[in-house]
């Protein structure tokens, strides 16, 4: 199952994804995708190091769909995280 690694950024808690060159970006579409166990293990190792280096908090692998050629979240929870906002209109946006 194709997977990416997600976490929260330490300084501000914002949702991030492990991307190319070991960068942690907020954009899921830029995330590095592991196609198999071996690939995921590699990403996990990088993520573990990033947590130890106090860049991110709580990394975990997340399954993605690649039907559209870019990684897309499978669960509602991950869709909400990837959107970086609630699914409702915020009170500041309403009027």
């Amino acid at each position, binding site marked *: 199952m194709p997977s990416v690694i997600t976490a929260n950024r330490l300084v501000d808690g914002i949702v991030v994804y492990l991307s190319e060159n070991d960068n942690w970006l907020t954009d899921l579409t830029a995330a590095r995708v592991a196609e198999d166990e071996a690939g995921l293990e590699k990403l996990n190792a990088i993520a573990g190091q990033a947590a130890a280096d106090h860049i991110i*908090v709580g990394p975990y692998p997340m399954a993605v769909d690649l039907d559209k050629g870019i990684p897309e979240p499978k669960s*509602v929870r991950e869709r909400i995280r990837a959107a970086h906002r609630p699914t409702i209109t915020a009170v500041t946006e309403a009027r």
Partner: protein
Amino acid sequence: MYRYDEFDRDFLSDRNREFRGQVERRLAGQLTEDEFKPLRLMNGLYLQLHAYMLRVAIPYGVLSTRQLRQLGMIARRWDKGFGHWTTRQNIQFNWVKLVDVPDILEALAEVDMHAIQTSGNCIRNVTADPFAGAAADEIEDPRIWAEILRQWSTNHPEFTFLPRKFKIAITGALEDRAAIAFHDIGIRIVGGPNGTFGFRIYVGGGQGRTPYVAQEIKDFLPPDQLLSYLEAMLRIYNLHGRRDNIYKARIKILVNAIGIDAYRTQVEEEWERIRGEEIDLPADEAARIRAHFAPPQLQPMPVGHAAFSKARAQDSGFDRWVRHNVLPHKNPDYAIVSIAFKEPGRPPGDATAEEMERVADAADRYSGGEVRVTYTQNLILPNVARADLADLYEDLKATGLVAGNTGLITDIIACPGLDYCNLANARSLPIAQDITERFAEPEKAEAIGELRLNISGCINACGHHHSGHIGILGVDKKGTEHYQITLGGSPGDDAAIGDIVGPSFPAEEVPDAIEKIVDTYLAQRRDEEGFLATYARVGADPFKEALYGTSR
């Protein structure tokens, strides 16, 4: 209200300095997340779905306008311009940055506020009747005792590492508006002989995975013995509470496992042993705290009845607002006013920085600078002259905060759910909005009458779904959000846990389901009968029939 003394201020600034150091060490990598997490939680800082969340304590729901403006400032400067009134009379900021938290805590300390006791296995912020000091049916002001409990429980060495979080609520009025039956300890102030009063103590209530209504442990406790009795209660819990299993660690599990009588016997024995140990507050200290809550000097302000009636007749919105959001005050010239943060398009309990400032302005102008937060996620102006109601209404109208729906079906309690919360199974806020939309017609909501509808995004029940007349619980059904509906719960004097009505519904079917429940109630009710009375009389079958087509 209670004003901090030097001791409180020094304590707070020491604590903030300490946490600033801890944040710096965390950012520099000298503390791991495992080491840091318990420290941040002791300061109300959670890591949620999108960001850090800071939960700020509003002790017993009382705010000065200075504090409310500062909360607005914090929302604007360090968050996305809004905050969220919680179901425990606190406020949450959803989008704070770890690097900013020490500055935010400093800004809070400037107005004697903090985020202590809003997280972790300690005695949490004590909640109280939001009408305290103003309610027409009040026996004794519960804020005095809530403040005494705050001082007793803050940093009490024995109670900072309890088996689980511990919640206390207190009411001093005839009607329970603090949901005391759903707390670890619930305290009801009751009248005693010759104009005296005392405390009736309840224990072991709570919602969540294993909901219980609290049971009475002590019928009447004289005021000067409150602390020693509670200390004995907590000590027995601390001894027996299970620390090996978080689902079994709450006092409700202990009380229901050994039985209220056995628990009472042990508490009474412990109490006899410790009563002499100077745990109870000396009378002069109690008097000092009481002085902080001296009733405001309310000038006689007779309302011009003719003009008032005319204003009501001319403006149906004002008339409705008076019917539902204006509540009886001790002083007949005055009223308690509920400011609703529930209406179509608004996530329940969310308030913008500007709204906080406008409400503060209104409170300064019309309510002696006092504001309260309710666990139902609204604000209260406790001391408004009836003669000023029309002017207040106009001011609030300019802010868009005049929904006249307090206590109606659209006055929904909802937790943040899966839109923000890391523990959620399903979203609460869109469900709340869909239902609010469905019953948006004020006449429709009003025709239904009082109805408590509560929504939680998971079994932790922060949205109090168990105690809703109609409760909605978000569940995960094979990866999709589903909602289980309960009927017949109540937070008040007739406290009850709702019954699950049947299989859960997908999100898009929930508004229809609620409408069917409401229609069934309207068809079945006799005269002015409330939802609970109808439900008790006809039972669940007609509702099941309406929802599922078959009565099972």
